[in-house]
């Protein structure tokens, strides 16, 4: 029997397809027994060429394209894009629209954190928590569906405002949903901070000190669990967060348990904020019209997505299409920390550490053009050509 294992340690590939990853990414962990000695990451499996594609669509179409950067935090991308374009056009959305945008953003944060809690419980092998947190996530998805009309890509934004209003019945439904979610979040906090078996898998695992977090450029809840006070909603308030401030949730332990607790405490903070917005919803218009051609200029916005800071840079050249659009998502900043933290841990802890930053690969991977690698240079294919190419390719392979 032949074996290719030459040294004592060998490499365990995690991904591109692997049960621990809900999205394609590739990690290679060199292990010595059960202990990880080296880690390597490769991205790009969900690369869709969004930055490049945005340059060939008009300003309105880009709004929906960017909403698809990420399936979970779709609203925040549209939100960031709208803010940047409005900044370029020297227009401000009406206060009511700003409040509704923030409200949807916070609902989305609740959704994202519940989803994350389930995923990481699943990685730890605690499927009961996974099932229950996802059951409760349905509640917030129902709220979002009832409010915006879509379950996933909410399309709540419009350049210059929002598409819908919140009436009394909807406000009532949201409040009821929030009561339920608050109670459940309280329960999960108990589970996450008390359950002895679960704590065995989180306490003291993947510790990242404050200095490490700063050097590795961690953002969002991952950074805040290491006591890095960085929350765009507070440090660089935007939109309606100026009228409705949030409180920063910080923890100084820096391990997985801290990351869990920071996120659950953020749930409470989001719920409080939504209630406050519902009680003091500014009145007025829902949207203002934007010109089709956006004046030339540059705009940069930074927003706090559920996973951390998202950075948008937009350059306009005065036409109806953007000149350049750059998206920097939180996961790319946090992935660095996974690579460093995994070394020295058991293989069994790796999925947990990975889940601890709430990775989102589709956020990371964005741009691409179609090419044919066998020809020199680049060949652009139309769809029928590509289809034919696929058929020919498999015919050849079949022989």
């Amino acid at each position: 029997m032949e074996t290719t294992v030459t040294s004592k340690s060998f490499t365990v590939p995690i991904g591109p397809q692997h049960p621990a990853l809900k999205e394609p990414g590739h990690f290679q962990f060199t292990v010595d027994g059960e202990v990880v000695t080296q880690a390597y990451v490769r991205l790009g499996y969900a690369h869709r060429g969004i930055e490049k594609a945005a340059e060939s669509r008009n300003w309105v179409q880009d709004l929906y394209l960017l909403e698809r950067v990420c399936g979970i935090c779709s609203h925040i991308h549209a939100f960031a894009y709208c803010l940047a374009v409005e900044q370029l056009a020297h227009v401000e959305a009406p206060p009511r629209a700003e409040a509704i945008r923030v409200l949807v953003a916070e609902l989305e944060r609740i959704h994202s954190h519940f989803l994350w809690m389930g995923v990481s419980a699943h990685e730890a092998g605690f499927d009961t928590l996974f099932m229950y947190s996802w059951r409760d996530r349905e509640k917030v998805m129902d709220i979002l569906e009832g409010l915006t009309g879509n379950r996933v890509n909410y399309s709540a934004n419009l350049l210059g405002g929002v598409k819908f209003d919140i009436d009394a019945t909807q406000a009532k439904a949201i409040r009821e949903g929030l009561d339920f979610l608050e109670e459940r979040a309280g329960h999960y906090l108990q589970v996450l901070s008390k359950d002895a078996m679960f704590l065995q898998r989180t306490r003291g695992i993947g510790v990242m000190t404050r200095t490490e977090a700063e050097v590795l450029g961690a953002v969002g809840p991952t950074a805040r669990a290491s006591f890095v006070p960085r929350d765009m909603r507070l440090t660089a308030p935007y939109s309606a967060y100026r009228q409705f401030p949030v409180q920063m949730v910080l923890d100084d332990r820096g391990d997985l348990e801290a990351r869990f607790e920071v996120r659950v405490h953020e749930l409470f903070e989001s719920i409080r904020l939504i209630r406050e917005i519902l009680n003091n919803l500014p009145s007025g218009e829902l949207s203002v019209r934007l010109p089709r051609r956006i004046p030339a200029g540059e705009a940069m916005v930074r927003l706090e997505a559920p996973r951390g800071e998202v950075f948008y840079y937009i350059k306009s050249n005065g036409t109806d299409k953007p000149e350049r659009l750059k998206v920097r998502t939180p996961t790319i900043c946090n992935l660095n920390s996974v690579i460093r933290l995994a070394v020295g841990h058991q293989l069994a802890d790796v999925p947990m550490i990975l889940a601890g930053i709430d990775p989102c690969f589709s956020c990371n991977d964005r741009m691409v053009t179609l090419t044919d690698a066998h020809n020199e240079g680049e060949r652009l294919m139309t769809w029928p050509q590509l289809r034919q190419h696929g058929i020919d390719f498999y015919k050849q392979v079949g022989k």
Partner: protein
Amino acid sequence: MNNEEILSLAEQIVKSWNWTTEVSRSQPNQLDVKVLKLEELVPIVVGLRVKRLGYLSAIVGLDLGSAADQFEILYYFCEKNSAIVLRVHTPRVNASLPSLCEIIPSAEVFERELREMFGIDIVGLKTIEHLYLPEDWPDGVFPMLKDTQLPALPVQGEKV
């Protein structure tokens, strides 16, 4: 430190040395520093880091098109609500930039992205493998260049 203090401190740092820069306030909370000499980029970044001014939020590459024949690279250093932008230009042919990885480890992903999307040679970058693009991506094709064309969208009225 409030925003005004951050920005004026940054301005002070940039101006206090004999660096060839053009400093302006393009937006109320943004300091624009045009770095005219490439070799001065690293010292300026070191200067900002020493005073703990900002963290590297992103590096944005811009292709200014075939007319200008230049790349513009923006380094966004953010702190609180303010941003310090370092603007660097490099010609499109044989473009090269110094690497910031020694000073800021998290710059690695952005520099790898610049390398594979724009074909900018990052001097001092250790990991030069593809980050986003496939392994068999042809050499010398850089998707984010303006003259690299994407397949056009089906236009209105086109028969299906």
